[in-house]
């Protein structure tokens, strides 16, 4: 039953199934990226072969009627700023809750609320933020989106950084204390270097989730403050759907994710699995 030929057949079958699954993942993405290089007529005619053109990318990026570069810049600003604020707040809080003498009930309520808050649908939260932002005059500003994304991702960052902070040997922190290190010195010189990989994992995930968010950005922005996903949805909403331009914009929008996947896969996997398993 377990002869060498049987196990080789089995391995071959396994590879065939895995390759089929990989194709199922890749083909849709590749087909749409390719659609970005087609003319609308070529796409609608359903022909398989086509001559690639750069017209769609030109239209999306440089046409007077398109704000895609502004949208791209908005997404970058929102993603980077909200990630930065979220990481600083989450790391400090995670360390504080795990290493300082907070009463247990306080820690439970704090983390419990963050967890429950994380479960609420973003659209329900967006309705709450929309009213508040309007009241304080922050509606249609990037600040509103930055703040919303920061607090949207804060629970996940708190959770992840909690895992990484607990991995720091307590003896090391105690030794530093005995040597007279103040809290800022302790955090900067002892804790930070140890949690750096965890910080990278959390940063990548926070940025990706901010970049990908549609519901919150849709409801808190207008034309000039719209982010990339909101812009992509616009292509599909017009009276006449601009399929090829939508494809080109979609292709451009996954560039950051591709770069992060190539340079930071280790961190992405660590972040996604740590968060769920521990």
């Amino acid at each position: 039953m377990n002869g060498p030929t049987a196990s080789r057949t089995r391995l071959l079958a396994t590879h065939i199934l895995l390759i089929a699954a990989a194709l199922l993942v890749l083909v849709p993405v590749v087909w749409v990226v390719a659609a970005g290089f087609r003319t609308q007529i070529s796409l609608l005619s359903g022909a398989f072969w086509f001559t690639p053109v750069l017209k769609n990318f030109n239209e999306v990026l440089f046409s007077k009627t398109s704000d895609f570069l502004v949208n791209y810049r908005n997404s970058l600003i929102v993603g980077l700023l909200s990630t930065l604020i979220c990481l600083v707040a989450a790391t400090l809080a995670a360390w504080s809750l795990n290493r300082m003498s907070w009463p247990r009930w306080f820690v439970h309520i704090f983390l419990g609320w963050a967890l429950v808050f994380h479960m609420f649908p973003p659209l329900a939260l967006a309705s709450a933020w929309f009213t508040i932002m309007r009241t304080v005059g922050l509606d249609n500003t990037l600040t509103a989106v930055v703040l919303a994304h920061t607090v949207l991702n804060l629970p996940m960052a708190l959770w992840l950084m909690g895992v990484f902070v607990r991995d720091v040997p307590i003896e090391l922190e105690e030794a530093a204390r005995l040597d007279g290190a103040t809290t800022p010195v302790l955090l900067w010189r002892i804790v930070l270097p140890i949690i750096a990989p965890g910080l990278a994992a959390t940063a990548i995930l926070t940025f990706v989730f901010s970049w990908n968010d549609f519901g919150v950005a849709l409801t808190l922005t207008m034309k000039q403050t719209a982010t990339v996903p909101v812009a992509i949805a616009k292509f599909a909403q017009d009276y006449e759907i601009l399929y090829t331009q939508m494809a080109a914009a979609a292709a451009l929008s996954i560039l950051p994710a591709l770069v992060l996947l190539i340079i930071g896969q280790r961190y992405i996997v660590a972040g996604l699995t740590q968060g769920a398993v521990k």
Partner: protein
Amino acid sequence: MKPIASAAAHVAAVEAEPSATVSQPTAADFARGLDERLWRWLTLSPALLLLLALSVLPLLNLFATSFFTVSWSGGHSSFTAAGLNNYRELAGDTLFRAGILNTVLFALFAVGGQMLCGFVLALLCTGVARGRLLYRTIFILPILVPGIVVGAIWKLLLNYDFGLVNQATALIGFDAVNWLGSANTALASVIFVDIWHWTPFCFLLFLAGLQSLPQDVYEAAKIDGASGWQELAYVTLPMMLPTIMVTFAFRLVLAFKVFDEVYLLTGGGPGTATQVMSFTLYQRFFREDQTGYGSAMSVAIIFMTCLLLSAAFAARGRMGAAR
């Protein structure tokens, strides 16, 4: 409940001890205590302020708004007290009812499909040594793609006239299907797209779980002459149960938030075939500017999420007790 109570008592005892036995705290101790108390608050305050100002406050405000009828004119709002009217109206809102039903259907089938596909893929992946990393890299890709782009991708692929899916089915002699435009297939199509989007996430968690299983149990099973299926049923599945439960809870919560794909693929249609909670809320609150009524709907959705959560916690508690 017991361990927490005893741990708290333990903490209290440890904290009480020094002051009882040590004769006099020195000035240095006092300064250190002050320093620690200061930094304890300083390190927590950014997150605390963010949560208070951007989660607690807006939700309280939302709750208050849900008891009013809000009308907008010229950028100004006027509030009229409505009592429980908004909530009463909610019960009769057919769109909302359809939204709840579809969300439940969507969540159950999509998450079930993802878990099954993810588990099979993870099992297959642990069976190969060469190429595992490459497969993993490819499978991670959909997790990182924005939901709206996933929607855009499949809006093109499932297009009635020129979509790749209909082209492929035409090759083997099937008639073209209006996947997104027909009430019979729209919800199933959206579920399929979600399975495509999130199977990789389940795969990743299951792969990590499978790789961390102790190998000696498998060797023991092999010595006892267990077949592949027996190994799966009596060794792998029971040991993977915690990971499976966590993944299920994780995905279920996310599935209840579904919005992006529906927005782009079907816009809730045709009719109410793919109307989901978040989309109904979007229509009522943002498109129709029903701020008061929309707030009540948000509160109701949040309340239902809380119910689901407490049910999950109760189930976990019972499982823990059974063990």
